[in-house]
């Protein structure tokens, strides 16, 4: 007998939530929730940035670690990228740009800042052996400070049109799904993926099996940082500005998406497909509550409950499987 993959369950939850909103929609606001193409696009658009971060965070969680720095790295990458994307006629230019720089420059800078932050995370964890929670907490606080210091708290505006284009239309959605696909394949079919799971499942056994655990962890955290940098580029391009307050609490949403999608904080378990569904669940809840015109407060309350419920369900599943053998 072949068991269904756990993703089937997550997908079911996603559908059930969507149908619930559909039903409530007809009862309370006399509209369809799903039969509205624009709403669906906006919904996915809203969570694309979280989704990009969550793809990286999922990999970190699979190694048994955690990354709290994502949100701050989004802000730092957004600031740096935006400063290099200012148009030449900007009034308050951070760097007096004489010409519009090609769009590749700010994008590359944003990614590089993210990767650098991830490298710091990974090096701290692999080099000193401190818990990932502490290392990334430190980077989280420092990166936020750096983002503010960079322009002394001033927002960066007047960005070039090609840069803004990265964040407009469905571009973020495409980037999110492409990122998810790439890392889905990487986790399943490459040595990088196999080693990532092995380290999370049993780090000591992984070392004895010949894996350079430290080196590999640095790679995983750097990738997670890179994706946070990408999220920073997307955020600033969408807002056509850079602000030091961007990405606040994004790390928690990303962790939530991964956990709702079945990643286990004890490591060794998790899939990108699950994380994508988890991200969409967050999106449906956000957009559904707005659609029903319910206060944002309730939305947060429910979101919290969903995260806890996802982990409880996961524990329950695991216990049942253990007693069945």
């Amino acid at each position: 007998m072949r068991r269904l993959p756990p993703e089937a369950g997550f997908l079911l939850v996603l559908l059930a939530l969507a149908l619930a909103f559909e039903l409530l929609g007809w009862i309370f606001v006399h509209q369809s929730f799903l039969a509205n193409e624009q709403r669906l696009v906006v919904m996915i658009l809203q969570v694309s940035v979280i989704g990009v971060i969550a793809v990286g965070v999922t990999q970190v969680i699979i190694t048994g670690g955690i990354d709290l720095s994502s949100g701050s790295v989004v802000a730092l990458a957004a600031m740096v990228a935006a400063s290099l994307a200012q148009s030449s006629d900007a009034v308050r230019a951070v760097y007096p740009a004489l010409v519009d720089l090609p769009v590749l420059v700010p994008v590359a800078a944003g990614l590089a800042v993210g990767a650098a932050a991830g490298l710091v995370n990974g090096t701290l964890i692999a080099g000193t052996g401190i818990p990932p929670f502490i290392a990334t907490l430190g980077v989280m606080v420092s990166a936020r400070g750096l983002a503010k210091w960079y322009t002394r708290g001033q927002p960066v505006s007047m960005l070039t049109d090609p840069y803004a284009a990265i964040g407009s239309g469905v571009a973020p959605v495409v980037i999110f799904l492409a990122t998810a696909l790439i890392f889905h394949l990487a986790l399943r079919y490459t040595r990088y993926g196999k080693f990532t799971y092995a380290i999370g499942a049993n780090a000591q056994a992984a070392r004895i099996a010949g894996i350079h655990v430290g080196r590999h962890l640095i790679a995983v955290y750097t990738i997670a940082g890179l994706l946070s940098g990408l999220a920073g580029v997307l955020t600033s391009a969408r807002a056509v500005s850079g602000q030091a307050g961007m990405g606040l609490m994004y790390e928690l949403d990303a962790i939530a998406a991964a956990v709702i999608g079945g990643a286990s904080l004890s490591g060794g378990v998790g899939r990108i497909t699950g994380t994508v569904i988890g991200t969409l669940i967050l999106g449906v809840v956000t957009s559904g509550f707005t659609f029903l015109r319910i206060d944002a407060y309730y939305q947060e309350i429910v979101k919290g409950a969903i995260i806890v419920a996802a982990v409880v369900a996961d524990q329950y599943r695991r216990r049942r499987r253990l007693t069945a053998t």
Partner: protein
Amino acid sequence: MGTAAAGRATPPLLEVSRLSKSFPGVAALEDVTLHLGHGRVHALMGENGAGKSTLMKIVAGVCTPDSGELRLEGRSVRLDSPRQALESGIAMIHQELNLLPTMSVAENIWIRREPLNALKFVRHRELNRRTRALLERLAVDIDPEAEVRTLPLAARQMVEIARALSYDSRVLIMDEPTSALTEREAERLFAVIRASATRGVGIFYVTHRIEELSAIADDISVLRDGRHIGAGTPATLSREDIIRMMVGRELAPLPAAAPAQAGPVALSAHALSVAGEFEDVSFELHAGEILGVAGLVGSGRSRLAETLFGLVTPTAGEIRIAGCAVRLDSPAAAISRGVGFVTEDRKETGCFPSLSVLENLEISVLSRDFVRCGVVHWGAARQACERMASALKVKTRGLSERIENLSGGNQQKVLLGRWLLLKPKILILDEPTRGVDVGAKAEIHQLITRLVAEGAAVLMISSEMPEILAMSHRVMVMHEGRVTGILERQAATQVKIMDLAAR
């Protein structure tokens, strides 16, 4: 104790009557009936998956049976939780100990029952006094205030036993308590068990080690495929009888190792030392040879193995592989020179529990084969793993089964297979058959023999004397971090080895 129903002889301490239990797809226990008497040590034997653990879990209240009955001193009891069992006087000492490592011995024993003063603060002096009294009764010398994590495994087990007895338990269940103990530690454990038995406690003793039975068991029951196959005492059952009942077939005696074809030196150590662990260790290991390493736990055997595999950096001396001095700064470095290492602790340092059999098998070989530009050629990797799994006779529903669902013996075969895929020139085995049932053990021994016949060099650490004697071409004995002798096969006898190991 034992006020029996009027007019009847004293009923046995615990009667297990017609117990059955099935899990989806498998009958784990079928109609099992057996008795445990007051002050008796009742050994339960059986291969992994024979139903011993299920039976013990039912007695300890962890599982509920589908049918059948438990009678404690003649009275029928229903045990729905371990706590209920404990309150009825039945305590289980698990293979994985359930102690709180950062708390003291006394705190662990009396947890939830600490003596309190009027302000509900714990009276530590009284706590320690009680603990000392309890430990003295068992003739165990452990400091009540010691942190549990600082104690060796054997001492922790005794703490568990003390805790069980502190509940005035009348039935103790011990699941392979000696699997991680040295012979001397096991002897001390036996003394504690006997001391408990003389106080009227009945003990269920689950074990794989037939050698232990004559030392500890009063009664023996053998389970196979969930059924109670036979019973007797150490006097009435021979080793062969028990093995036959366990496996349901005649078992060839341990294969005598083929004579070594003394090839060139594959691995050698020259005055190798790790400060505080072992000192001045020198030996030569030839291709086509099994060098057994005997010694008590704490003799530095395992640390030596870890050093030869690059997990520990030597503080002095030299390792040579195929004649060249090497510096091994990581397992990866050792592996790239053709060294493999099956560690003694499957769970802690071997298995990836949440991953499949396939992923557990292929992980090491992926560092070298079946990968191009980082992408795994998964068809080829899978084929190689399938061939390996069938060559090793791994019993599993499929390669995508999680390894944690396999029995210990099959897990061990998978771990061995992980290294065999790399075709190692030198294989270090630390307790290769610990916690493995008789059938799988013989198969693992055959594999090792075959590997050596093909020219590999094997360094085999084992606490099981029969294994050392049957498998090794030469035996190196260690005692407290020093090599006390290297015996040729003809000269290696149990007495000689114990003499060198215990001094």
